[in-house]
């Protein structure tokens, strides 16, 4: 498999505080990679750096193009869809408008309505709420909307920041089932940051473990999940 994303020596700071100290990781076309780590390890910052929301240095090769220094909107137009922590839906707009916005940079206007219908098939609850303001949805519905909106870009790569955050166990299960279907059937490539390591390792092919802005362990998800230290610290065995 070819590398879809290859990150080398990624560094970033917030003001004077250095948050990332030269990360290197990669993602295969059609694969799922997860970044694990404690609170404050720099996982969210890494995702934000990938989509140009944080100034960074180093190299982020996405389909051979370097993303460092590009604007967030250009990176989105290259096919990177980010579902941020806290979801970032357009709360004052309707569900359907949110989905339209997801596709706003696409040029194949004719297919958009078809894709919206497809999203409603994936997430039937959104269909019921298509004319409702996004801000009035429940947490789970908002997270689904955020993912659906990201998919509307027909992304080459999806970045998911804590998709399980604030969701009930049942909804989390449903969410990850959908993600795994999307990965299997639509060949969506994903980079997932997740506090729930067991869930993330369950869906991922590759995993990286971050500690205070550096990668301390990496490998196939199965292997990482079997590691004694990881099991104790992140999986609770």
């Amino acid at each position, binding site marked *: 498999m070819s590398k879809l994303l290859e990150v080398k020596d990624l560094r970033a700071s917030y003001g004077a505080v250095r948050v990332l100290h030269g990360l290197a990781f990669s993602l295969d076309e059609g694969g799922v990679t997860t970044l694990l780590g404690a609170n404050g390890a720099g996982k969210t910052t890494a995702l934000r750096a990938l989509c140009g929301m944080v100034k960074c240095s180093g190299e982020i090769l996405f389909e051979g193009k370097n993303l460092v220094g590009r604007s*967030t909107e250009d990176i989105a137009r290259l096919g990177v869809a980010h579902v941020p922590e806290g979801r*970032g*839906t*357009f709360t*004052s707009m309707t569900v359907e408008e949110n989905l*339209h916005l997801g596709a706003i940079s696409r040029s194949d*206007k004719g297919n958009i309505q078809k894709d919206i219908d497809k999203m409603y098939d994936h997430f039937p609850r959104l269909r019921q709420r298509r004319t409702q303001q996004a801000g009035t949805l429940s947490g789970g519905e908002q997270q689904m909307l955020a993912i659906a909106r990201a998919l509307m870009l027909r992304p080459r790569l999806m970045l998911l920041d804590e998709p399980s955050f604030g969701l009930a166990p049942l909804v989390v299960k449903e969410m990850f089932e959908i993600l795994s279907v999307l990965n299997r059937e639509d060949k969506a490539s994903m980079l997932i940051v997740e506090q729930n390591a067991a869930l993330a390792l369950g869906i991922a092919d590759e995993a990286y473990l971050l500690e205070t802005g550096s990668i301390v362990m990496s490998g196939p998800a199965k292997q990482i999940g079997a590691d004694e230290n990881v099991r104790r610290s992140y999986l609770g065995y």
Partner: protein
Amino acid sequence: MELFTQQVLAGIATGAIYACMALAVVMIYQAINHLNFAQGEMAMFSTFIAWQFLEWGLPYWLAFILTVIVSFVAGVAIERVVFKPIENAPVLSHVVIFIALYSVINSAAGFIWDFTVKSFPSPFGSSPLFGSSLISAHQGGMVAVTLALLLLLYMFFSYTRVGLAMRAAAANPASARLVGIRVSWMTALGWGMAAALGSIAGMLIAPVVFLEPNMMISILLYGFAGAVLGGLTSPGGAVLGGFAVGVIENLAGTYIPVVGSELKLPIALVVIVVVLVFKPAGLFGRVVVSRV
């Protein structure tokens, strides 16, 4: 009662001026989430440009269209040149830039065209409308143009992709960037559209109040008031708000003793503030419901 009806009608006629301006105010508010203090001056300057075209002998509608185009470009240019470099500055710094722009444009207009009052033609004529002495053909035309612009704006924001993108960019810039919207160009577009709308307002208002560099000061204030009263998120509300302000102003001047013409503006504003105390998002503003 007859006096009342007359005052209400006269209020609607002046209200058309405010409604027109209120529409431009809402336009810029949608794009940048601020009130632009320099907006009246921009409209005034546009009107002077139209006047200059007419002086050069251009036919009215050609001058009109050229002015709208020039104003649109100028609006985009102001955003790109003046605001883009300081887009991360605090909000109050932006407010100060509005004040600076106000000063620059007002002073430049006075310098170029001096401060003498000039008359500006109306495309609709000044004959009484339907034989009524209260509303002239020009004022009728203004109401019609305002409503037509309102309809156009509504369709633009509701049914076009650019309109949707503009709303998204204003509502949540960070998320808008994530879906690939070029937020800063949307802002520039908003400036351009607001400037174009303002130029139309200016050209419609000038025949009524005459053309001079200070013509827009109080009109912009009434326009703000109308927009805020109607709800800054609702173009339709802003237009209604503009008409309401015209009526309130007239009635206050007529029925509240001691007031006289000097205190008309403050009284109108006080009435609006009282309304806002009970309806904090304006009469037609949308309250965004979200979960805490």
